[in-house]
């Protein structure tokens, strides 16, 4: 947990202060990709001897799809609550929240659909969702349980939050995280477009 906050915080300070030259943008993108692959490869290796993880997946059967479904419904209910007590419309809140933490795609999608400022807002909201998940996942796992921890990660539970999920659960939640993350990611373009264009 301390390592997570320190790494992220140091990175933000480096970026903000200009200590990391922005001319190295291409290098940074490659750095992110390679780190992500190393992380996921390591999680795969740990998972190879983690029989409990697959036992849980097997015992759940088709009920495994209830987790991403519940997480999406919960996210959208949270967004609807925000629409009730803020000047934003229900349509805007639902379209932004249905990025489920995938900030690059949701931001670009909304900008392309014709609302660049809502795209920026979606970008910031989903960045916050990802940071929130990274920082509070361990606590959520201890207090609310495994499904809640996976749900908090949304679409990121198959990439950036997968390492934290693996660490806090001893690998047990990795298959659930992958299933939930893939389903969330597949649904992002559908929900964002649906809420923005047809609501």
């Amino acid at each position, binding site marked *: 947990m301390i390592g997570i906050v320190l790494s992220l915080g140091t*990175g933000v300070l480096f970026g903000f202060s200009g200590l990391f030259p922005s001319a190295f*943008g291409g290098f940074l993108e490659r750095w992110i990709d390679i780190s*992500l692959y190393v992380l996921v490869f*390591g999680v795969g290796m740990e998972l190879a001897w983690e029989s409990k993880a697959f036992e849980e997946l097997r015992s759940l059967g088709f009920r495994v799809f209830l987790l991403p479904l519940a997480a999406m419904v919960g996210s959208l209910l949270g967004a609807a609550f925000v629409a009730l007590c803020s000047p934003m419309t229900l349509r805007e809140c639902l379209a932004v929240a249905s990025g489920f933490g995938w900030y690059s795609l949701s931001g670009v999608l909304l900008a392309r659909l014709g609302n660049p400022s809502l795209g920026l807002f979606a970008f910031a909201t989903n960045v916050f969702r990802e940071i929130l998940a990274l920082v509070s996942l361990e606590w959520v796992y201890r207090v609310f349980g495994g499904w809640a921890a996976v749900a908090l990660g949304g679409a990121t539970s198959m990439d950036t939050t997968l390492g934290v999920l693996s*660490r806090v659960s001893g690998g047990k939640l990795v298959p659930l995280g992958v299933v939930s993350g893939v389903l969330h990611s597949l649904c992002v373009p559908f929900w964002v477009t649906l809420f923005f264009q047809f609501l």
Partner: protein
Amino acid sequence: MWLLLVVLALGFLVGKLVRSDLAKGVGKVLSTVGLLFLLFAMGVRLGQEEFLRMKLTFFGLSALFLAFAAGAGAVVVAGLVERMVSRRKRP
């Protein structure tokens, strides 16, 4: 997304080819190093986002509120569904 799943499967296969303690040890080191480097790089990218810095004061609090509400909603509903599923699993 699919490339990530391929890399995950590759890690799984390599892990199966070596002893369990070695796979777990090396896997843990790789995932920890990968995670810390990833978070640092993500932090740098966030810190460099010019437009995010400019707009943060304008819509930062609303974005944080919406992110919190969406995350909290997901946690609560998924937590409740997990309880229902585990109650049904018990004989």
